């Protein structure tokens, strides 16, 4: 008997040891999962950089690059200083009360998201914390994405410091407020209206797109964009292939972006012990993302090709395909994703032309691709998936997805983007910090402020080949 008992004790000890190992493996997997989303999302910035520089004329190519790189650089520390805190502090709105899930409110944010006092342990190297840094990293990269979206729209005439201020307001505040309200289990748009925006079509893309619109209204068009009768001239960038490759790189990076929207199972902070979930705690699989992202890219490209035949708009169509379906990539049927993305690709150019006829010079179509299509995607989910529970919880106790809830979310995202974009750019304009002087714009911003040349040898014919 004693022998059997000893055997049993040994067996239990062995199982405990094995289970401890599995737990460590899971923790390492979870940390690595989010860590890898960070370089993948940096590819989005590689893409935006190439896209924006290609869309610039030769005289502005490097200054466009400088602006884009600086936006990324300022986004990381400002998101560390206060952006991360805003996300955790205000899901329930003002004044920052705690929400039902117990992971929000000013008190909670003070405890985990400030770089000083007791909270600093979660904002620095800590052997007992494998999560805070990688979550912060992923969110900081979401923030930088919003800044890059705005960056392309305003090329060739904005001042560098004015632009960086706008990027900080957008990336470390405006979209973070939208995320707190609509991308958090305690977010009031989610708990009260059943908003579902899994892949951030509204709270990243639409917010950034309409923030850019607010800025463009105050910034004005590039010299030579519009004629006196109001008709528009096309201002071609210096390198379309670079722009198209940049757009493709953005799409590569979006696999990391959408991967970072998933919550890994099995950790103390996970929703499930054995299933991936969305940020709302609803189940998801990476297979769902694989099916739907690929179908969305294809649908968007095909839709844009039908009406434009232009590689710039085709690759913008790919982006529009992802953005138009991002809200429901977790629950759409792949063919449905394809059809929605196709429709987004079809309407893309019309929407951009409509905006241009109103005197808005959006150099890369960012307001349309991210703003208009982002809102289209948020609303389409209400049409296609009404009745799905928006959160984890018992039937009747949690809000469900509805057209009304999605429309309310879309309106809020529009306002959270447009109002600060317009307001802050208006102030910058008053202080002379928004637009570069006319003479400098005509001379070219590289000559004015970049001590380097994009193509110092021009584009000469190839050297003679060796015999």
């Amino acid at each position, binding site marked *: 008997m004693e022998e059997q008992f000893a055997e049993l004790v040994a067996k239990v000890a062995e199982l405990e040891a094995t289970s401890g190992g599995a737990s460590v493996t899971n923790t390492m997997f979870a940390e690595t999962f989010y860590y890898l989303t960070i370089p993948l999302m940096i590819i989005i910035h590689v893409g935006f950089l190439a896209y924006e520089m290609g869309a610039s004329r030769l005289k502005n190519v490097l200054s466009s690059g400088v602006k884009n790189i600086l936006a990324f650089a300022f986004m990381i520390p400002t998101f560390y200083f206060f952006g991360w805190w805003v996300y955790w502090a205000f899901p329930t709105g003002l004044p920052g009360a705690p929400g039902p899930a117990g992971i929000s409110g000013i008190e909670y944010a003070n405890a985990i998201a400030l770089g000083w006092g007791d909270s600093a342990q979660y904002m620095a190297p800590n052997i007992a914390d494998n999560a805070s840094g990688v979550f912060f990293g992923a969110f900081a990269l979401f923030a930088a994405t919003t800044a890059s979206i705005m960056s392309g729209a305003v090329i060739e005439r904005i001042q560098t410091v004015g632009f960086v201020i706008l990027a900080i307001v957008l990336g470390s505040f405006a979209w973070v407020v939208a995320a707190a309200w609509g991308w958090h289990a305690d977010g009031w748009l989610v708990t009260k209206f059943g908003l579902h925006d899994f892949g951030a079509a509204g709270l990243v893309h639409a917010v950034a797109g309409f923030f850019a619109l607010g800025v463009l209204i105050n910034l004005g068009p590039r010299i030579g964009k519009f004629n006196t009768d109001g008709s528009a001239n096309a201002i071609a960038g210096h390198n379309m292939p670079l722009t198209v490759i940049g757009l493709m790189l953005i799409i590569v990076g979006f696999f990391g972006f959408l991967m970072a929207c998933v919550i890994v199972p099995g950790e103390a902070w996970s929703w499930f012990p054995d299933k991936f979930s969305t940020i709302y*705690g*609803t*189940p998801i699989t990476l297979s*769902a993302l694989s099916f739907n992202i690929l*179908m969305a890219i294809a*649908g968007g490209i*095909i839709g844009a*090709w*039908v009406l434009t035949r232009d590689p710039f708009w085709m690759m913008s169509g790919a982006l529009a395909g992802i953005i138009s379906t991002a809200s*429901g990539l977790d*629950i*759409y*049927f792949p*063919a*449905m994703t*394809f*059809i929605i993305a*196709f429709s987004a690709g079809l309407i893309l150019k019309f929407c951009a032309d409509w905006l241009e006829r109103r005197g808005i010079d959006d150099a890369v179509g960012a307001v349309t691709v991210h703003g208009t299509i982002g809102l289209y995607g948020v609303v389409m989910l209400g049409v*296609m*998936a*009404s*009745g*799905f*529970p928006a959160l*984890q*919880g*018992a*039937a*009747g106790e*949690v809000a*469900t997805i509805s057209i009304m809830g999605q429309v309310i979310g879309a309106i809020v995202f529009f306002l959270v983007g447009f109002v600060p974009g317009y307001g802050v750019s208006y102030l910058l304009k008053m202080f002379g910090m928004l637009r570069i002087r006319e003479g400098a714009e005509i001379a070219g911003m590289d000559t004015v402020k970049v001590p380097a040349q994009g193509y110092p040898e021009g584009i000469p014919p190839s050297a003679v080949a060796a015999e």
Partner: protein
Amino acid sequence: MFPYDEASWSVVDGAMFAGSGTALPGLTTFIAAVICIAVLVYGQRSETAKAKAFD
């Protein structure tokens, strides 16, 4: 459109996409295929017409 009787994720144990268990998946697959074919037909016609202008 939620494919389970009870509007709760706790009862979900399989397919969970919009339209699951209805004719919608088949219908949308058919429409998507038709779109692909129609776009190719339209593309071929318009490209041929443009190329003929250079004959």
